[in-house]
């Protein structure tokens, strides 16, 4: 049962949130010019790493805001939380 620090509300338990999948997947623009392969990558392909994962969460049962989380899929440790539009924190190896 994760403890997430909503950047707008503070620490709340996982039940208030929903994970909304991988972050930083840009919509190909202009879409009409994107190839089928590019569009498929946008729609379907995911990095699915075993380790640190950039992902989006929504505080669905709270402020309803979306934000980004850098979290380990192996230990569930949360490394960083940042708002949409803020720069992606670099991975420290």
């Amino acid at each position, binding site marked *: 049962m994760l403890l997430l620090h909503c950047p707008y509300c503070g620490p709340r338990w996982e039940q208030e949130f929903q994970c909304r999948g991988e972050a930083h997947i840009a919509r190909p623009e202009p879409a009409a010019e994107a190839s089928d392969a590019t569009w498929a990558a946008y729609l379907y392909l995911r990095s699915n790493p075993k380790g640190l*994962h950039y992902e989006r969460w929504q505080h669905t049962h709270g402020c309803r805001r979306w934000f980004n989380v850098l979290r380990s899929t192996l230990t569930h440790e949360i490394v960083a939380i940042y708002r949409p539009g803020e720069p992606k924190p670099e991975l420290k190896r």
Partner: protein
Amino acid sequence: MSRYSAINLLRNALGGHRHWPVVWRDPAPKPRYEVVIVGGGGHGLATAYYLAKHHGIRDIAVLEKGWLGGGNTGRNTTVVRSNYLNDESGSLYELSLKLWEGLSQELNYNVMFSQRGVLNLAHTEHDVQSLRRHVFANRTQGIDAEWLSADEVRAFCPILNFSPGARFPIRGGSLQRRGGIARHDAVAWGFARAADRLGVDIIQNCEVTALKREGDRIVGLETSRGEIAAGKVGVVVAGHCGVLAAMAGFRLPIESHPLQALVSEPLKPVLHTVVMSGLVHVYVSQSDKGELVIGAGADTYNSYAQRGSLGIIEGTAHALIELFPCFSRLRMLRSWAGIVDICTDVSPIISKTPVAGLYFNCGWGTGGFKATPGSGFVFAHTIVRDEPHPVAAPFSLDRFTSGAIVPEHGAAAVAH
């Protein structure tokens, strides 16, 4: 004495059971194999077995990073059925179900496939329409399916909640009588033993650390037990498919999530079929040992940790009691999680890949156990012929580019 039968059980009893042969050898990896299967779960072992049995290939290794059947094969809720919506899925799962029906005899290992029926409950008008659509689709596909009225459901499974206070009253259900459950570990062990008899090297504690390519072609693997050259490599690693795909340099339309399941303490027989409800979100059967085997939901986040949240378990408990009020005072004995590889269209991938000689079989999500024999059967064919088995063709990777996906979202809100 090595064949399994009642008579040999008796003979071995006289010898104090000292003469049973080992179920599979424990060979050291050879430097090269014609085909290497990565992943010693049910699907991987089945693939190796059918490669050896039907395609005459004997120079095969199965590499398993831990112990055989230690992934989702040993963590699922053992439901077997074939009542899918789309013709493509129907063909695949029905092929599998037919193999299940003779599997104990084929493998000479009792996998305890119990065709006690799988009952899907409808609680709303929409459920009724959706399940009836499945029933009609299945009958057209040649897959057994029956629609039961609410009264018929009650007669079939009287301990279900038919009280007037039910939040989601039961309005009927679809029943596949040929569906049921099997003993999950036995499936891995049975395939392993049968494959071993055909000369397949089953190598445990052997983790693949890199895939070796020459140009666009796979030539071997680096493992924790040394380098192994390979003519062809089939990857069947479920939740870890993304890790292997990354080694091969491509991404998959798959994310890995924790899926939890749990069992109750053992009870005398009380539930005689498999009951599933998409709306109330639970599925349950009773194992031969007497435990209620209960499927819970998947967490929304990606994980490789084989652990999930208590919240999922709580939700499953109230769903269980909603369907079976008399289970309220029973206790959860054990809960666990597997890592399920969920594909965008909730259908599997059985496919060639951008790398020649490298094949992937993954994306079975929450429902791979039932497909074990069929998956191995069509994947073996795909590897040998270097082109998809006709039943597997719709499940190739290129469907994501073309858009010809096999949508089973509606097939069951709880798919497994």
